[in-house]
């Protein structure tokens, strides 16, 4: 995603997610990380791993929802990289059901 290609340095991320098993997921989080791209010509930052996180963006804090029920979570982020890939780090202790979506709405301050 080109974060601020149109002068949008901030963004609001929305994650739709559900779990088959929701045991003890309340207040646990799914971390959102960025991997800056094209930071030196066409070279990118390293891909995040469990022991390496290039840029932490925010946390989606989970609700104790019912099993197999979508919950929509948001993260407001400031000062995003100019261009980046975004990664999720599941710290809920449960498996996320396939079909999750991550949407982003770039934001900036200008005339409405």
């Amino acid at each position, binding site marked *: 995603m080109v974060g601020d290609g149109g002068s949008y340095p901030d963004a609001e991320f929305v994650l739709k997610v559900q779990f088959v098993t929701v045991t003890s997921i309340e207040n646990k989080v799914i971390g959102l990380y960025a991997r800056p791209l094209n930071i030196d010509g066409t070279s990118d930052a390293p891909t995040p791993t469990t022991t390496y996180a290039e840029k*932490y963006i925010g946390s989606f804090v989970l609700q104790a929802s019912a099993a197999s029920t979508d919950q929509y979570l948001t993260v407001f982020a400031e000062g995003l990289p100019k261009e980046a890939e975004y990664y999720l780090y599941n710290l809920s202790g449960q498996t996320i059901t396939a079909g999750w979506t991550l949407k982003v709405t770039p934001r900036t301050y200008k005339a409405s």
Partner: protein
Amino acid sequence: MSSLLLMPGGKRPPEQTQHNVPIDHEGLGKGIQLLLNPALGPIDIATGRAWTVGGDVKVEDVTRGKIFKYPGVDGDLHYTGYPEISGTVGTFFIWCPTVGPKDDWGHGIFGEAATTFFLAHQFGQFYHMGSESDRIFSWFNGTNKSLVCSSANATGAGLKVYQNGEDTGMLFSAAPTPWSSGAKTLTIGRNPGFGTVHDFNGTIRLVGYTKEVWGKAEAAAFHVNPWRIFKTRTRKLWVASVASTEHNLTIANGALANAAAILAISQIHAIAVANTSIANSASTLAVSQVHSLAMANGTLSNAAGTVTISQGAAITLAIAGIAISNSAASLALSQEHILALSTGTIANSAAVLSLSQVHALSIYSAGISNLAGTVALESSDVTLTIYSATIENSTDSVAITITLNSQWAEEASISSVWTLDSARTTTWS
């Protein structure tokens, strides 16, 4: 047109931030190497590392955000890594809404294995990077506690512990144990070298480590508002356009002439003082007001002529009957005069204005005692009548002298009735 107002210097977060706010690396957040805010889960804000939640520790919602809750049985937060944390210089800090009772051997708060640890011992001593304090301090069973442990160098003298922003005064004789080089397992809320006898019991609002050495000022600031670690956000305010309505600031036809003269704008204010009460005071009460003087069509002609002032009042002078006693003393005649002037007109003249009046003077039954003095009556137009004057017998002559003005002498009619006595002499002149 719309306007964007950038307002730097906004307030720092007054309460727990619920999203990833930048750390103030130029302020209290300088040198931060580890920072955990439970509102974002067990993820280190400074590095993005996701810590492991062990045992019964969990994140809970509370009135003013979220906390890490440690039931005090068996749990911790830990992570293996952090090669950048090394040596002995740095500061550990933690803010706890609640601190519960001690575990078997106290509270292991932060540390690495059984060497470099921060621990409140069950007997009250405190271990700062493994160095034991010279005295005890109060840690267990309290609310809203902050703890700041700084190490300035590799000696025990460089160790300080601040609780709730105040220096505890504890001294440490042993040198601190430096952090292991390379990756190490850091633990929050437990002393990993001693099993489950040092489990922390309480809640944590914010916890972290910095390579800076905090003093009393930093410890106090942290205690008052731990969110000072985060950056002040620039506030951006928009004045947005709505349809054809614009909210712009316009100066209409403002012209400033280049002039050295002073421009004065004055205005007269009406001051109304309604029923004021003035207290007894040495100060001066000043009430000022500008009065407007109105003159309606006043015409003053240039004239050298006289000005006539007339008055129509009548003045009457009356004299009531008076008694004049026979006395050698001077005769004083007093009377209130009423002078009536009928519509008198006084011309503008250099002449002396005289006012004359004819007085009628009557003397009745005057008893004149025998005196050597002279009684003189003078009048320009007098009718003198003497009735029944009694003149006592005296060896001296009694002289009555009437002097008439020569111009009236011939016309004067003098009548008298005398009882002559040979022994007396009457002299006329």
